[in-house]
């Protein structure tokens, strides 16, 4: 199965935030979305998951147009993890992860639903927090709970908006590693927005660079991560070094203007 995004354009009010975005991705791949703040990464992810249906363009999944799916059908195929979450009526971690099963349940959760939820909890090593309220967790722990929920949702398309933004160094690696494993193992498609280019280079199979409403570069990590592209997108001078056959970015100090 593959995902095809075709000529997607979106605007909140007057001006287009995204214009004519097209790309493909095959099952079993992790796609990284890079770009400066406010360039529309979150917006693009919401469009792809149809939380904000795009004004024009199409998203084709399972050879079918996403517009023809019901809201419940979409939830069985796509799970979306937002950049940040907040809750005024917090529930326990277990119940929060169980919510991932809502698209499948008809009033009552079954043993199968519970098994899926507990497996996701265990996958992210959250057993120790299982009965805490979600508002009693640290930002990073909470982020992992929401990721566990999206995995319990058993999607074919996993969409994660900056899933590692609150995590420490080790957890960033662990979480991305787990996401990557599940993508390979279950032949899913995952799209993540991410700011850390080095992490993206380590874990993503393919990268998209977003700037000025559109994709300015797309492809294998090695082809995307170079001094030129980074200067063009972020306006920052860097040196690219190769470690373990991966491209890594080292920042150069800004020349102080006189």
């Amino acid at each position: 199965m593959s995902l095809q995004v075709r000529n997607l354009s979106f605007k909140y009010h007057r001006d287009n935030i995204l214009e004519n975005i097209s790309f493909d991705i095959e099952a079993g791949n992790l796609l990284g979305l890079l770009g400066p703040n406010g360039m529309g990464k979150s917006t693009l992810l919401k469009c792809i998951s149809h939380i904000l249906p795009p004004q024009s363009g199409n998203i084709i999944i399972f050879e079918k147009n996403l517009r023809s799916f019901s809201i419940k059908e979409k939830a069985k195929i796509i799970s979306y993890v937002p950049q940040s979450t907040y809750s005024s009526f917090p529930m326990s971690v277990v119940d929060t992860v169980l919510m991932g099963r809502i698209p499948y349940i008809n009033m009552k959760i079954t043993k199968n639903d519970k098994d899926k939820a507990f497996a996701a909890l265990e996958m992210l090593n959250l057993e120790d927090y299982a009965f805490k309220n979600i508002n009693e967790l640290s930002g990073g722990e909470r982020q992992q709970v929401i990721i566990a929920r999206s995995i319990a949702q058993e999607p074919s398309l996993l969409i994660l908006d900056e899933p590692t933004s609150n995590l420490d160094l080790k957890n960033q690696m662990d979480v991305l590693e787990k996401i990557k494993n599940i993508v390979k193992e279950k032949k899913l498609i995952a799209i993540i927005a991410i700011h850390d280019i080095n992490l993206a280079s380590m874990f993503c199979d393919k990268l998209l660079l977003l700037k000025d409403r559109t994709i300015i570069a797309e492809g294998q990590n090695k082809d995307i991560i170079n001094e030129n592209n980074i200067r063009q997108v972020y306006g920052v001078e860097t040196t690219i070094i190769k470690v373990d056959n991966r491209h890594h970015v080292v920042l150069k100090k800004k020349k102080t203007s006189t």
Partner: protein
Amino acid sequence: MDIREQYDEQTNKKIKWISLLFVFMIILSIYTITLGTANISVHEVLSAIRKILTNSSLTVQEKIILHLRIPRILMAILAGAGLSFAGTVMQAITRNPLVSPFTIGISSAAAFGASLAIVFGLGIYTSTSFGIVLTAFFFSLLCALLVYGISNKIGLTPETLILTGIALNYLFSAFTATIHFFSQEHQLASAVAWTFGSLNASTWEHVVYVMVVIVICFPLLYRQAWVFNAMASNEDELVQGLGINPAKNRAVAGILSVLVTASIISFTGVIGFVGLVAPHISRLIIGSDHRFLLPFSTAVGGLLVVLADTIGRVILSPVIIPVGIVVSYLGVPLFINLIITRKKGYF
């Protein structure tokens, strides 16, 4: 211990607590039948209930039990249960802990309807007591429809619902004040008394009407427990991501809980506080999972109003203090006490 077993054990514990609370509510209700100006023993109450059920002829005292005490206490349970249940739902769908069934103006619209009927004898069946009920009911539904109609134009988000609700609340309060301003003294007294909330006039007929509404609406809403879980703890975007249409569910659940609220307060007047505080008391005790919260808050609401009404009946007997007033005296200390002493994680 394995977290799976731990989870199942917790679930069983919650179910046990809910059952216990309902049993306690029933025992307490039977006991409160004995209290009041006419002295009746528990034994007499039980034998009266037996005689009523077997259709034997009744003594005067048994008639008091049958026609005054029992419907009153049933109405107290239903009112408390219904308002608390509706409050829990309203808080879930607006994701806002400050919301009660009255935030969106239902009570002031009902008060306006009641005043209209009392002062001008306007309304269907006019100034008969049933005319007051119908007019109050009509205006509370009208208010709810206005709130939904207006906020639907901007997408039925929690914010638009609450803000239009508050605005209409003030509008209907202004209407009511205007009527009161132009009314005569004895009418003013009974119009104001209506807003205190009272169970004095409860009859079997009222009980049946409210019961029918509750029996229809409760199961429809309870089926949505998981939807409420999702809506109460997530932004609309995420709710959609879980396959739920937030606007549609908000509208349906909102209308059903308005229906419950309106049918209760049209008979009893405004018993306000219970719809706000009983859900919170319950949440502090049993947590925010609506599978358990909904039944638990139903029992807490019922208990609270039965207790409040009984205290109101006995404390200055033969003067009866309106239940709407006592409920606040009872609920506020209980609530504040729970907030202060709340130990983390009962479950």
